[in-house]
C-alpha cells in the first residue's frame, strides 16, 4: 500500500484565493488588511519565515510591514510598541517572530497583543476560545493541521485520533479542535509509556514533537492518515535537508494519506495566518462600526 500525499501547496493555494477575495472586499469597505511583523536582533533565524509571510501577504492583497528592533530593546519598550500597534486602527494583526532574545519573554509579549489583533492565535483568550469550540483566531499551525485532515474523505465524528506531542501551541490545540469536531482524541508525549500502542489504533495521527524519524511505518494502522507537523533540519551525505517527525518512506508504505515535509503543513500554516489576518480585520471592522461609527468607516 502506498499513501496518497496530501498536497499542502494546493490546499494553501485554494485558501489563498478565498482570502484574497475577502481582503479585496474589506479594502473596498475602507478596511485594507495590514499585518505588522516584529523581530528583534539578529534576524537570520527568522528571516526565511518573514520573507515567506511577506510574499504570501503581498500575493493575497494584505499589506505587510516587517519591523526589526535592536537586540538592546527592553521589555518595557517593546510592550510600548505593542500598545501602540494595538491602538493603531490601520494595523489589523501583529506577528511576533521567534526566536527572541532571552530578556524578552515571548508569552508576555503574546499576551500584550490585543486578542482582536492576535493573528497568530497565541493570546490565552485565543487558546481558550479553541477549547470552547469557538474558533475565531486559532493558533495557525494547529488550525492548518486540522484543516488538512478535513480535506480527506473521513468522517471525523467518532474517529480515533492520536496526537503525539503536547505542546501548548500545537499539540494541545489540535487535541481540543479535534475533540470539538467529535473525534475521540488521545494525546501522547515524552512521558507516555508506549506511544506505538496509541498510534497504532488511531485512524489519524498528528505528530508535532520536533524529532526526525520519531514515527515509523510499524507504528501506524494500515490506511491511517498521518499529519506531520515537524520541521527539522538534518545533515545528510547529500547536504542539509528539511524533514518532518515521520520516517516518510516507511510511513508512506502503511498510511492511507501522508503530508510531505516540506510542502505539507508549512504552506497551509502561512495560508492560515493570512486567513486570520482578514478575519481579524473583519472582526475589528464590526467591532468599530458596532461601537463607535455610524458609517463603518475607519477613523483617521
Amino acid at each position: 500500500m502506498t499513501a496518497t500525499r496530501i498536497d499542502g501547496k494546493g490546499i494553501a493555494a485554494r485558501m489563498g484565493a478565498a482570502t484574497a477575495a475577502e481582503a479585496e472586499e474589506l479594502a473596498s469597505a475602507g478596511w485594507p488588511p495590514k499585518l505588522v511583523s516584529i523581530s528583534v536582533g539578529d534576524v537570520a533565524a527568522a528571516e526565511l519565515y518573514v520573507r515567506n509571510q511577506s510574499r504570501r501577504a503581498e500575493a493575497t492583497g494584505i499589506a505587510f510591514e516587517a519591523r526589526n528592533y535592536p537586540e538592546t530593546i527592553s521589555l518595557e519598550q517593546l510592550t510600548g510598541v505593542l500598545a501602540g500597534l494595538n491602538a493603531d486602527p490601520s494595523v489589523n494583526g501583529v506577528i511576533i517572530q521567534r526566536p527572541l532574545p532571552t530578556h524578552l519573554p515571548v508569552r508576555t509579549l503574546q499576551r500584550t497583543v490585543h486578542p482582536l489583533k492576535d493573528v497568530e492565535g497565541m493570546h490565552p483568550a485565543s487558546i481558550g476560545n479553541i477549547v470552547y469550540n469557538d474558533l475565531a483566531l486559532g493558533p495557525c499551525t494547529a488550525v492548518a493541521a486540522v484543516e488538512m485532515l478535513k480535506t480527506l474523505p473521513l468522517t471525523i465524528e467518532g474517529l480515533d485520533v492520536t496526537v503525539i506531542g503536547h505542546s501548548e501551541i500545537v499539540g494541545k490545540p489540535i487535541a481540543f479542535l479535534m475533540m470539538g469536531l467529535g473525534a475521540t482524541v488521545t494525546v501522547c508525549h515524552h512521558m507516555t509509556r508506549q506511544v506505538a500502542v496509541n498510534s497504532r489504533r488511531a485512524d489519524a495521527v498528528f505528530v508535532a514533537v520536533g524529532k526526525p524519524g520519531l514515527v515509523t511505518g510499524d507504528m501506524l494502522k494500515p490506511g491511517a492518515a498521518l499529519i506531520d507537523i515537524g520541521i527539522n533540519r538534518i545533515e545528510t551525505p547529500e547536504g542539509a535537508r528539511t524533514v518532518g517527525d515521520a520516517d516518510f518512506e516507511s510511513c508512506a508504505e502503511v498510511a492511507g494519506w501522508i503530508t510531505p515535509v516540506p510542502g505539507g503543513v508549512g504552506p497551509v500554516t502561512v495560508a492560515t495566518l493570512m486567513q486570520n489576518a482578514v478575519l481579524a480585520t473583519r472582526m475589528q471592522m464590526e467591532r468599530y462600526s458596532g461601537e463607535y461609527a455610524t458609517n463603518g468607516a475607519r477613523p483617521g
Partner: protein
Amino acid sequence: MDDIAKKATLIDGKRFSEQLRERVADEVGRLATRGDVVPGLAVVLVGDDPASRVYVQSKQRAVTAAGMRSFEHSLAAETTQQRLLDLIHQLNADADVHGILVQLPLPDHIDPGVIIEAIDPRKDVDGFHPTNVGRLGTGQGALVPCTPLGCLMLLQAHLGSLAGREAVVVGRSNIVGKPMAALLLGHDCTVTMAHSRTRNLPDVVGRADIVVAAAGRAHLIQGDWLKPGAVVIDVGINRIAAPERGEGKMRLVGDVDFDGAFATAGAITPVPGGVGPMTIACLLVNTLTAACRIHQLDEPEGLAPSL
C-alpha cells in the same frame, strides 16, 4: 460478595474537603493577622431558581466560615443584560472583591458568554473566562474551574505523581471534561478524551489507569469495563428512581455503576460524598489564590496543585 475479592479503596471527598477548608481558613487567618488582606467573594444570583438559591447559600456559608468576606447580589429575573454588566464592572473595580461568581444558569435573555467575558480574569474564580481557559491550556497560572481542580487534588492525594499514567476523561463539557483533560495533560498523563461520539467506550475505558467520568448519564460506565486497579473519579450526579426506598423515592448515583466498579477498581469516589464536596472547597481555594495574586502576596504553599 466473595470474601477473597479485592475491594476498592473509597476516596473520601467529604473528609478531604473538610481538611482543605480548614487549611484555607488557617491561611485566611494568617493573612488577616498580618494585616494584608481579607479575601472577598461576590456571588451574583439572577432570578429565583430555588436550586440556584440553595447553591448560592451554601457557597456563602462556606466563604464566611473560612473567614472571608461574602458579598451577595441578588437580582430580579427580569434584570437586563446591561444592568448585570454594570454590576460586573463595578465588582471588577471593587478592591474588596477578589472573586466574582455568577451563578449559572442565567435567564434566557442574558448571554452567559458575554457576562463571563466581562469578568476580570483575575477575579474569575469559576475559571470560565476564555483567558483562564487558555492559561490552563498553556500552563500560565490559570484560575482553574472548581470541579476538575477538586478531582485533580483527589487523584494526587491518592496516587502522588500522575506523570505517565493513562487517563481517560469521559465527557467533554466546558465546565468539567475539557478543563479536566487539560489539567491531566499538564500533569503529563497520556490523556484520552472520550464522549458520546466515541465508538468503543468499553475498550477506551478499559485501558485507563485513571477514569474521570463526567458524562452526566447514570451508570454509563460498567464495573467490568474497568482495568483492575484503576482509580475512578465519578463526577456524575444523577437522580434516579429508588423504589426500594418507597414509592416515588429518588436517590443520587454517579456515572459509574458503583457496585460493579467497587469490585474491580483500585479506588473510587462515592456519589454523594466524593467529588461534590470538593467543588465548594476549591471555590475557597480559588478565592484565596485570586486575593494573593491581586495583592502580589505569596500563594500558600501546597494548597493548590502547581499548574
